[in-house]
């Protein structure tokens, strides 16, 4: 199966280890992934708060590029960032359901010689890996199972709400099942889809970081030594403000935080540098190795 890859702005910057580990894992699994040429920002959560038609047009441009790229049938566009995943899906819904939005977007796309028909499936890699590739196939690639590693799976909000297509909106389980297939022990906790603070950690730090603190504290209480994420903003919030959280809330012994694709890569025996592990601010590799009892 052929997948077009829409990185989104974060995966080229703070989310670089997500891109590195995702592409390395897909290569290992033998999946054909091609970066969408000439992609632009999707508008993220921000643009919609300024001008809705510009926001929809910006997102739809990427959908139109994907369609043009895939003349035979429906294009599969892989969007690893939860916000991109939501925004692209939302643009699809609004263009299909609201004639006034469709008219505006179609007209704007026409001005740059693009056309959007509505034939793109926007897919999150968690969906692709658990449903298209399947846990059985993933399991065959596991060389160093993550036995003993206690993980809290954190999905974030926008992967399941409001346009969930592959998992439960209140209690998603796809990442839990994937990590169990890798040999890890998945802890039960109720905050799988609770907001991490989003962009508020940067704009209203006291408020935003309190939301991240709540997640890290409850993950630790549930017994997790590591939190697995599937979104560059969730990852950033849980990983990069740990010093502030320790200082402001006296929260010690916070879990390490890693992309689920990095954990896949470790279990598949890929080299840490291929997975961007040297770029992390929490000791992901050490925590994983200590738990599994392997030598580094």
């Amino acid at each position, binding site marked *: 199966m052929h997948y077009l890859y829409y990185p989104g702005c974060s995966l080229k910057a703070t989310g670089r280890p997500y891109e590195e580990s995702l592409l390395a894992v897909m290569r290992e699994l033998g999946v054909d992934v091609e970066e969408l040429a000439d992609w632009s920002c999707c508008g993220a959560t921000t643009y919609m708060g300024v001008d*809705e038609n510009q926001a929809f047009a910006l997102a739809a441009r990427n959908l139109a590029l994907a369609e043009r790229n895939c003349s035979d049938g429906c294009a599969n566009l892989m969007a690893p960032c939860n916000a991109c995943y939501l925004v692209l899906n939302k643009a699809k819904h609004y263009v299909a359901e609201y004639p006034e939005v469709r008219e505006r977007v179609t007209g704007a796309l026409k001005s740059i010689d693009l056309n959007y028909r509505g034939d793109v499936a926007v897919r999150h890699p968690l969906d692709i890996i658990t449903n298209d590739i399947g846990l059985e196939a993933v399991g065959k690639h596991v060389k160093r199972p993550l036995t003993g590693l206690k993980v809290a799976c954190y999905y974030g909000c926008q992967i399941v709400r409001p346009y969930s297509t592959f998992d439960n909106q209140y209690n998603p389980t796809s990442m839990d099942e994937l990590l169990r297939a890798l040999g890890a022990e998945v802890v039960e906790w109720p905050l799988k889809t609770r907001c991490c603070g989003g962009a508020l950690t940067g704009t209203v730090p006291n408020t935003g970081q309190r939301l991240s603190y709540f997640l890290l504290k409850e993950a630790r209480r549930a017994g997790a030594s590591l939190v697995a994420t599937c979104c560059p903003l969730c990852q950033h919030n849980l990983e990069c403000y740990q010093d502030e959280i320790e200082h402001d809330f006296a929260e010690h012994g916070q879990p390490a935080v890693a992309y689920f694709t990095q954990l896949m890569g470790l279990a598949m025996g890929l080299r840490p540098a291929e997975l961007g592990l040297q770029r992390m601010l929490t000791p992901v590799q050490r925590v994983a190795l200590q738990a599994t009892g392997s030598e580094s």
Partner: protein
Amino acid sequence: MGNMPLEPRIKYQEELDLGFGRSVVAHPGAEDLYRCIQCGTCSSTCPLVTYMEHTPRRIIAMTRAGLKNDVLKSNTIWLCSSCYSCTVACPKQIKITDVMYTLKREAIRSGVHADMPIPVLAGEFIKSVARTGRSNEMRIITATWLKTKPFELFKQAWMGLRLWLKGRLSFGLHRMSGDRRQIRKLLVAAGEQNLGPRGG
């Protein structure tokens, strides 16, 4: 008795804009606002409600009542982080997150938004996109703090430095590969928002 002065007991009475609710409902996504039964499920699911001047339920009631200024000036609409908890929980299927987006746009358009960094960040965000086709996280947040609370930059500089050392940050412009003029052309054709200066 007959000449005892009567004072308004509700301070907003003269400030009402009775057409406000109807004007909000005209936006795509906000069409179901009048189906709200004021049950408060939105407020109870909201992870940020404790910090809001008005709860989401109240914002809906105030919007319908025509308390335009108080709604548009409130911090509530900017604290909405778009987690969509309220949207999926609403028993009347009102897209509350999208109602908040409509109110954000109205607050920016009418120039009365709350004195917070978030609407400033929104302006920097679209300028970055119109200029480069991408959003450059670090330039956007830096420009936002310079315009609001420069001191905050010092507090966040440490994390920025650590990320830069790990190769996860760049002050250079991330640009899309193709013709960037396309983006400006597309945005101008699609909407009304001023995109800031060209170049970059």
